[in-house]
């Protein structure tokens, strides 16, 4: 694996999950150590024992999961490890002044005295960038920087990246969102299974070509845009002014009204933490309703328990599969039976039916192309994508009427994503109502017939497919928010 990064360029590194993009960059940043090979910096071989060495040589990294201490202020986070002092005392005044100066130089707006956990995700990312620049980074590595941003915030980030480039910095984007990569990068390096397979100029390529390079085989294009038909099926879920409280007693859902019909996919768009998770929990009986009412499959929504929801025909693909969807130490077939362990073919009378369970599991593993198709393997031995296939298989196998899916493709690679999406469309064709909650706006827009936008627990917009407008939806996702930077 060899890669050349030139000074003052915008390079993108693309590849599927597990292609080795992040590992490569962690090696460059000194977090991991190469077993073989050399890193040459300005023609000199260097060896980074820890990030400290990399930082000293002007390499900065913004991780996909932010490396910020949430309880500290912006300034404290930025100066951590190289704190200005006065008589041995931490000089916060100077720290704030330094941070403000760095912000001004690169055109950010950040309050150095704000606690990091009060900032939006977009601002937190800027703190990360400032952190790197403050340490004199000339090369900035951004790992999946837009995964958590709204379109506006992402646009803002690209503007920042171009500005950095103009000031002579090098920016490396790691991503698998091809359209974004094409719009921001000058040069694109494609990785597959730990190896560099191509380097192309952004101006000379297009999405389809990149996708083929990434996956390594030509694959059918993603579903073309289907014509929109207004929902005609029966109303499966009708929610009126739902209100639910979070752990801290704050309203996390505040007057949410929505309907889901049979035979449609309803998308919920929103930035992380605006009530999506709680909405799914209310509908699946995991979270009590504080106020509001509704009907779920012809019976009241209030006082719903998860068991009752399942009996009415609600299936749930939760966001955090290892915590809520599977028991990772148990075998695939045991996980397949979860929730249905008392019913045929998983049980006969009061006894578990091992033969029936094995047979059904093998059938499903085949149908969903789970690899390896071994019913006895513990679920944690499967890759994330295959774990998700197990969950989807189980949830669809129970013949649901309403399907609540949250982040169904998080962490999956392109082919697994396509497979999950195809399954959801099949269910819709069968007359199932699908409530699709995802942080990936592109996914919501390609899959849904109708979209509700959630912001701070309120519905701030509804759109049907012909009206989809990424910028307008993005604006609604952040509407009441004061402009940060």
């Amino acid at each position, binding site marked *: 694996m060899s890669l050349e990064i030139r000074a003052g360029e915008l390079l993108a590194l693309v590849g599927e999950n597990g292609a080795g993009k992040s590992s490569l960059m962690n090696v460059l*940043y*000194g*977090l*991991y150590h190469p077993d073989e090979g050399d890193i040459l910096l300005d023609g000199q071989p260097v060896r980074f024992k*820890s*990030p*400290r*060495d*990399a*930082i*000293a040589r002007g390499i900065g*990294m913004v*991780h996909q*999961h932010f*490396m*910020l*201490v*949430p*309880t*500290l202020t912006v300034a*404290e*986070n930025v100066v*951590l*490890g190289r*704190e200005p*002092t006065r008589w*041995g*005392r*931490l000089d916060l005044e100077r720290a704030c002044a330094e941070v403000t100066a760095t912000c001004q130089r690169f055109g950010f707006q950040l309050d150095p005295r704000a606690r990091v956990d009060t900032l939006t995700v977009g601002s937190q990312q800027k703190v990360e960038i400032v*952190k790197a620049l403050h340490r004199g980074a000339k090369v900035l590595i951004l790992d999946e920087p837009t995964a958590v941003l709204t379109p506006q915030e992402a646009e803002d980030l690209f503007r920042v990246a171009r500005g950095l480039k103009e000031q002579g910095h090098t920016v490396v984007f790691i991503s698998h969102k091809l359209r974004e990569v094409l719009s921001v990068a000058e040069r694109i390096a494609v990785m597959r299974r730990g190896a560099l397979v191509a380097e192309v100029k952004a101006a000379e390529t297009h999405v389809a070509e990149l996708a083929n390079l990434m996956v390594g085989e030509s694959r059918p294009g993603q579903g073309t845009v289907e014509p929109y038909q207004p929902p005609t099926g029966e109303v499966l879920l009708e929610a009126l002014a739902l209100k639910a409280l979070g752990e801290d007693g704050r309203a996390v859902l505040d007057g949410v009204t929505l309907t889901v019909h049979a035979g449609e996919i309803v998308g919920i768009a929103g930035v992380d933490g605006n009530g999506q998770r709680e909405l799914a929990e209310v509908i699946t009986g995991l979270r009590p309703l504080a106020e509001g009412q509704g009907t779920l499959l012809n019976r009241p929504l209030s006082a719903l328990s998860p068991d009752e929801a399942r009996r009415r025909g609600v299936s749930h693909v939760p966001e955090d599969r290892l915590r809520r969807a599977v028991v990772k130490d148990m075998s695939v077939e045991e996980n397949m039976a979860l929730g249905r362990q008392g019913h045929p073919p998983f049980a006969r009378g009061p006894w578990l039916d091992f033969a029936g369970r094995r047979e059904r599991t093998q059938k499903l593993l085949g149908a969903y192309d789970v690899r390896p198709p071994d019913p006895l393997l513990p679920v944690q031995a499967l890759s994330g994508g295959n774990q998700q296939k197990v969950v989807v298989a189980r949830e669809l196998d129970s013949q649901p009427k309403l399907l609540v899916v949250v982040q169904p493709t998080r962490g999956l690679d392109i082919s697994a994503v396509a497979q999950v999406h195809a399954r959801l469309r099949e269910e819709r064709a069968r007359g199932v109502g699908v409530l699709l909650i995802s942080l990936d706006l592109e996914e919501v827009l390609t899959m849904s017939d109708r979209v509700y936008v959630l912001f701070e627990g309120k519905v701030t917009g509804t759109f049907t497919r012909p009206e989809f407008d990424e910028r307008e939806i993005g604006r609604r996702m952040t509407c009441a928010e004061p402009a940060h930077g």
Partner: protein
Amino acid sequence: MLELLEALLFSTLDAAPALIFAALGGVLSERAGVVNVGVEGQMRAGAFCAAVAALFMPTPLGVVLGMLAGAGLAAIHGYLSIRWRSDQVVSGMAINLVALAGGTFLLESLYSPNGTPAIEQLPRWTLPLIHGVPLLGALSEHSGMTYLALVLPFVFHAVLTHTPIGLRLRAVGEKPHAVATLGLSVQGLRWGAVLGGGLLAGLGGAVLSTAVLDRFEQHTPAGLGFMALAAMVFGRWTPLGAFGAASFFAFGNALRIGLASSAPGILEFIPQGFLLALPYLLTLILLAVQGQRSSAPAALGTPYEQESR
């Protein structure tokens, strides 16, 4: 009435330092993200070593040895939980059990089952001016440890909030990966905090056997280490909070002794056992009242592994 109050205050100030030092030790270790249920054991080690050492050398030197003994036990805890990333609660409890059994064994084989021979207590300081003044006089006639215990929490607070090392300590307990990506050593910071916590807990134990009593007794510190942990939790992992809570618990303890000695008649109505349990009962009630409003460091109890998030 005033005399009674003065006596209560006096015995609070006498008993509080052990709790305060131990609670601060807990705060130091836990703010860096290492659970320290081994405080009780570290106190016992400190109390034992200080008392035994004071048989052969000046008592203040014994106290220093007691601190080192606390740090020695903490080093085992650090080795297990930082170097080998073992479960920090289990490792801490193991230390408590080892200290309990080891202390008893050494005591019985070297001296007598009940305690070491008497040693010379730490000298008590008579403060001029206020000595003998009603109420204020309670501040006089304590060992140096009491005055140290009144100052140290503020020093600790200043270090934690106003110095670079304090900032790093707070950061490493909240998000060690962030500290690592900045090129700082998570292990180094945690080792420092655990050893420092051991020194403080050892000091707390040493105070028990050299200032409060004049020997190591069979049951020392008799659950005070756990009370110190409760004070740390109740004080929300802050030095000043832990200081306040530890003082409060010490007051409860003094109240028990005061009640039993100043009004012996009370024992006719309230069983002795209830009075003995009073400080612990207070601890339970306070923790129950405080409830879920916890503010523990986010990474508390999670071993740091570089290649994980």
